[in-house]
Every structure is written in C-alpha cells, then in structure tokens.
C-alpha cells in the first residue's frame, strides 16, 4: 500500500444517509430552474452523487476512486423541461439535510481535530520571545464545538399521482392536477398521458 493509499484510509468517511421516501418509495425533488416539485423513485447511486455534490460545495474533495458507481442519469423537469443531473434536483429540505450531515459527521470533527492540534502545539513549551526589543507571547485555546444532533429527513407526504413512462418503464409522481407531461423525465422520449 502506498502513502496515498494510507492517507486515503485515514480520511475516508462513511456517511449513513437515511432519506425519507413516501409510502410508494418516491423521493421529493425540486427543479433547480422553476422550483416546482415532483418525485422520483429513489436510486442509491443518485443519493451517493447528491451527497458528493454537497460535499464538493462545502469545499471537500470527494469521489469514488474505485470507479464502481456510475453517474446517475440526468432528469428533465416535467414542468419546464429544464434538464439537470439528478443530484441537482433536490428540495431545499434534502440539501439542508445533506449539508448538516456532512458538517456534523465530517467537517466538525475535522475542525475540532485541527484546533485541538493547534492548542497542543501552542501549549507545548514557551511561545514567547524576551531577548530583543519586542517581547510577545502567544496563547491558543480552543473550545471544542459541541456536536449538533444528527439531522432527520422526512417524513414524506404520500401525495401526488404516479406516472409510468412506458418508454423506459420508470415512474415519477406529479401533482394530481398536472397533466401536461409531454416528454419522459428520464429519457426525453415524447409521450402522451393516457
């Protein structure tokens, strides 16, 4: 095992993500263009990418270096036809949940560890100078930030109707009153609601 592999072992963090789906197994989504909500069936690979996207937004380097997971397909908003990666079409609730999870389980321990190390460094020996004109001393104390509670995701309302796309066999949910779907959310095939 090389050095980089050893470093990977030390920084590898496993997140336990528990997302709230509705009774039928659908996860609420929000179009990142028009903001309207629909639901898709959950895909673990998609959640992995969603978590990765949030980590990257928070300045963390993430990635599946084993190359075992494939990027999930993009989604086309059933309302405005905007196309984006599935990891970009999450509700604020889901995004906040993921951010809180990353902060609590990864960032905060790192921060506490870093400052604890600094405290140890400055606390060891004398960090002052008294031999010249200038005399200074440096004292560093860090109050460990208390760990916040783990975030909770869901519960998810069992609302909306199911639309099955016969082109690819996948399903979504849209509001009961919405009938204007004319393209498949997954594969963009032109469709007509039956």
């Amino acid at each position: 095992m090389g050095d980089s592999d050893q470093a990977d072992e030390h920084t590898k963090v496993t997140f336990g993500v528990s997302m709230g789906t509705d009774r039928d197994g659908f996860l609420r989504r929000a179009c990142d263009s028009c903001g309207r909500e629909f639901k898709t069936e959950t895909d673990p690979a998609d959640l992995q990418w969603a978590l990765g996207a949030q980590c990257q937004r928070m300045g963390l380097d993430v990635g599946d270096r084993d190359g075992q997971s494939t990027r999930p397909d993009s989604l086309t908003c059933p309302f405005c036809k905007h196309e984006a990666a599935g990891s970009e079409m999450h509700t604020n609730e889901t995004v906040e949940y993921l951010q809180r999870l990353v902060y609590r389980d990864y960032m905060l321990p790192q921060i506490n560890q870093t400052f604890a190390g600094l405290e140890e460094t400055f606390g060891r020996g004398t960090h002052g100078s008294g031999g010249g004109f200038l005399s200074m001393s440096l004292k560093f104390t860090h109050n460990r930030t208390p760990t916040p509670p783990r975030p909770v995701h869901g519960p998810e309302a069992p609302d909306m109707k199911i639309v099955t796309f016969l082109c690819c066999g996948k399903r979504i949910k849209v509001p009961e009153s919405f009938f204007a779907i004319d393209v498949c959310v997954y594969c963009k095939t032109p469709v007509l609601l039956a």
Partner: protein
Amino acid sequence: MILTSDQVANSLRQFKSRRDSLLHDDIATFEHQLRRFLDFCANDPLVGKVLAPTEARTVDPEAWWDAASQHNPDASFPSDPDDELALRYRLLQSARTDPNRIFNLGIAHHQNKRDGWVEFFRTLIVRPFADELSHRIGEAANLATPEARSIQAVPLSRIPRANEKKIFLSHKSVDKPLVYRYYHALKTLGFDPWLDERAMPAGANLEREVLRGFEESCAAVFFITASFKDEKYLAAEVDYAVMQKRQKEKKFAIVTLRYTNAAAVPGLLTPYIYKDVSNDLEGFDELLKALPIELGQVRWKSHIV
C-alpha cells in the same frame, strides 16, 4: 376527524420546518424554537392524533429531571417505546416552562457553556423525540390518505395514427353472424374493427374500399370455417394482407382462426399466426394476443364518476 390530503401534506411540511428549526437553528433562539414546536404539536390535527395516546401514559418527568441532573446523573428512559415518547414529550413541555432544567442537565453532564448544554439537550431529548415522532407522523399520514393513482405516459411512437389501427375482419358472407360477434366484442373494448358492409358507403367501389380498409389496418383476421374458400374476394384479401405485412412488418398482424371441421388454411397464410379454435371465446383470446396494438389503463366509466 378525517384529514384531506392537502391538510396532511401541510401538516407534514410545517412539522418538518418546526422540527428542523428546533434541532438546528441558532442556539440563541432555542427557547423560542421550542415554544413554536410545542405550540405546533399541541394544535396540529395530524400531530395531535399521534400524540394523543401519550397523554394516558403514566410517566414522571420530575423524577427524570432529578435523576438526570444530579451529581452522578442517570438519564435512562423507559423501555416501552410509547412510555419513552410520552416522557420525552413531557420533558420538552417542562423544559419550556423552566429553561433552567436544560442548564442543570448540561452542568450535570459536564457541559459548562450554553452551546454545550443546549446541544446536549437537543441530542439527548429532542432528537430522539423528533425522530420517533417523524416516523409515527409518517405512518399516520399514510393511513390518512388514499393510495396514489397511476397513469401512463405513452411514447408517441407507440400511439398509432387513426388511419393505421383498424382491424380488418375477412370472412365469407355466410359467416356474418360469427364475425359480427367478434366485431361487437372488439368495438366494446375500444378497438376499431373494419367490416366490409359497415365500413363502405353506398356505391363505393368494393375492390378499392377493401384495399383502403387494409391500408388503414394493423391486422387482418381470417375466419376459416367449413364454408371458407380461397377464391374471388377472399383470395384477393389474402393477397392484400400478405402485401400489408410486407410493407408494415411488425405493425401488421395476419391472424388466422381456424374453427373445428373447417377448410384448410390457404397456403399464403400458413407462415403467419394460425390457431385452431373450438369456440368464439378461445378465438377472441387468440386474436387479442396476436394484435400488434393494446388498450390503455383501467378507468371508471364516464357515467360512474
């Protein structure tokens, strides 16, 4: 009290917002968020349904506070999940009326700053309560709302045009009663069967209309009975059917239903679907299976709803 789907969705939305504010908002606003959350729990009909049974539970929050805030604290909870939920709820209520309890609990657990004791209280009391309540509210929401309805989104490429979905019923005149039964059954289901005398305007050129009937069809059904003979119009229809099959390939089916004691199947038809049937029901079943088109989802008839 029966809740509508909108009420249930609204309750869940507000619950999640109040819960997340209580769990994660700035610690400086914690008491305010606790009041908001408890007021919501007391007044929301869905949450009220879930929490109502906890009122009958015999739990002692005062004894818990005393045990959990002493020098060697004991912060254990009842093993019964309903008792635990009831106790946690009452602890939140008592913390609302006396915030010093949160302070005392934190001090007993070596938290010497406000940040520490509030986060400790959130982690020890609020979060497990919120998690369990979330689960129970989700269950209650499922029970309170009907199953989701389902519709299909059909690719346009799978929707035949009006002039390519007819079903041509080829037969000998003497077999009209038999073919009418198929015609009516197909019509009732929503298919578009083509029968010479019904489809042709008076004075129409028979040959031309029959050919047009084939061109607008996705299937030709040949009824081979004892009276069938591969000659004249019937022979021409067999030729037209084979021609359509060559042109439309998978989008055209030649279905041959051979009744008991019937004549031989014409040689041109034998490469295609060809079934021996003993009655109409059997024949109709074979026909539906052989058609290249299918009907849509089950729905209530218009006069029912």
